[in-house]
């Protein structure tokens, strides 16, 4: 078996175990927090009988172990239950709201990599000079304020005082939204061949994605800078210089690749953090993602929907981490070969 396949198999099996753990935990927590889901769903005017009926229908009076067993057997059939908030299957709800969130996080991730890493390299190469200082101050600012604060600040600056970007939403009301195919709006616009809608949607996503990515950009820039500076002190860089390789090439090839390894790990974690932060940024920008749904179902103690939402977010997190692990194995031969040499 090739070492990469081996690595993938190992990470996947660990992910399954993690998901099982998460499902147990969130299943229990959702049931432990006070409040009767049936009562909340039916409202204050429902009779005690109606509440008992609903509790019965939802099997809420079974032991938690029986409930979990039911959940697992349903889950195996791809059924996450009915949401008490929307009265629709939780899977349908998630399929509707998740793509917008993923799209936002994905664009934010692109910003994080696309701005953070180059800024870090720039900073390291001009260490101690003006460019370095500017990058360092900016990245510190990015890291130190939470993304919902940036969401509000950016909205005020670039949508209100300087109306360069739309203030909220995913696409202008005046446009006809292309038919929903993948659920990812940018993608759907392209598939429909509607470039005007695509440009408009892209225009809408810039501010929320940027607000979401700022702390990641700062983090990535700071890390890349620190790693590059450390790498520059390594003997192999001096050796590359002693062979007269051009400075540009040394930076791009010899210093960058070893420096990227620790940065990538953190970028993977930041990616996951953005999934959580997206809830607040979505709220600020009225983004039709999973956040509104997530907040509503938590407040209403909508058990099935809570478990479903948390599981989907955990699964996304795990998938991102597996991708990062594979990337690191690709860049760092030591990991590739360490996996192989193990019995």
């Amino acid at each position, binding site marked *: 078996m090739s070492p990469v396949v081996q690595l993938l198999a190992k990470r996947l099996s660990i992910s399954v175990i993690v998901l099982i753990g998460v499902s147990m935990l969130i299943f229990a927590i959702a049931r432990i927090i006070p409040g009767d889901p049936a009562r909340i769903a039916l409202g204050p005017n429902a009779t005690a009988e109606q509440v008992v009926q609903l509790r019965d229908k939802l099997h809420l009076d079974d032991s938690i172990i029986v409930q979990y067993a039911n959940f697992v057997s349903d889950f195996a059939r791809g059924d996450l239950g009915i949401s008490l908030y929307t009265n629709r299957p939780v899977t349908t709800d998630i399929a509707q709201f998740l793509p917008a969130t993923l799209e936002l996080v994905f664009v934010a991730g692109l910003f994080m990599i696309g701005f953070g890493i180059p800024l870090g390299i720039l900073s390291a190469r001009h260490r101690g000079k003006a460019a370095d200082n500017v990058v360092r101050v900016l990245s510190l600012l990015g890291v130190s304020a939470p993304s919902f604060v940036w969401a509000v600040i950016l909205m005020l600056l670039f949508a209100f005082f300087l109306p360069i970007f739309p203030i909220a939403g995913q696409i202008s009301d005046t446009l006809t939204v292309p038919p929903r195919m993948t659920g990812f709006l940018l993608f759907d616009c392209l598939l429909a061949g509607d470039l005007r809608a695509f440009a408009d949607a892209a225009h809408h996503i810039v501010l929320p994605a940027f607000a979401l990515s700022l702390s990641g950009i700062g983090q990535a820039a700071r890390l890349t800078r620190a790693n590059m500076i450390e790498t520059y002190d390594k*003997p192999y860089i001096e050796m590359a210089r002693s*062979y007269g390789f051009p400075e540009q090439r040394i930076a791009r090839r010899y210093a960058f690749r070893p420096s990227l390894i620790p940065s990538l790990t953190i970028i993977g974690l930041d990616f996951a953090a953005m999934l959580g932060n997206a809830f607040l940024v979505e709220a600020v920008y009225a983004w039709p993602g999973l956040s509104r749904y997530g907040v509503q179902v938590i407040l209403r103690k909508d058990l099935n929907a809570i478990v479903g939402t948390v599981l989907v977010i955990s699964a996304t997190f795990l998938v991102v981490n597996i991708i990062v692990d594979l990337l690191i194995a690709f860049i760092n031969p030591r990991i590739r070969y360490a996996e192989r040499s193990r019995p």
Partner: protein
Amino acid sequence: MSDPILSLRDLKLGFKTYEGLVEVLHGISLRIGRGEKVALVGESGSGKSVTARIILGLLQELKAARISGAIHFDGADLEKLSRRERQALRGTRMSMIFQDPTSSLNPVFPIHVQFHEVLRRMDRNLTQKQGMQRAISLLTDVSIPEPERVLQAYAFQLSGGMNQRVMIAMALANEPSLLIADEPGTALDVTVQAQTLHLMRDLVVRKGTSVLFISHNLGVVREFADRVYVIYKGRIVEHGPTDTLFSKPLHPYTKALMAAVPRITGGGIPDIAENSEAFLDPMIDHEVEVPA
């Protein structure tokens, strides 16, 4: 005497600090003839490695470094060359071997990629295949068994001795006129160090490469070098042919340095003064006082 491949005359180096200029080299003069193997010996901090880096033109890139004096390489005045021209010399007409071979090879590229990069310094249009063939023959020269396998490997998969051979092969790949060996193999086992040094000596003798051999190890120097410069605190204190210098050291510092080598026959760790006014005595040049 034919014109030397390298000559340093009154080379001074200082570093600009917040407390003013700190002088590190106080006027070093040194000359290496064509095909000659010259050693620069001294304790750590004496200025050996900075001298090597000035010759390569690496220290000139540092803003804080102040360099004066004349450096002639193969007839050309290095200080008159532009950055680009100095860079063009490195890896082609002069190259360097470092202390620790394993950490001097890049950890994320296999050996053949790094070899190719070095060979491309001479021939921009070198194909992968040609590079591979050249590399295989060069690795065979340094007695590496299964060179194809070694080329596919990463430095961390090879032993220190193997990496040292790779480094030697790389450094000599473009047939430079001058090889600078900065404490080569100090990070290796004594036996492996001896093997690789033998190999290096045979190769440079065969190819007629001039060598500046930097070391603090007197035993190794005696085996390797034709002439020796002893450096102390940024000054050359004694200089002469290896045999003369070792059989008749005259300068107090050289004597102390030789006394400092622990003998295999016992006698404990030698007790020498850490500092002595006498170490700063004027330079003794065996070639002037004891003409050959």
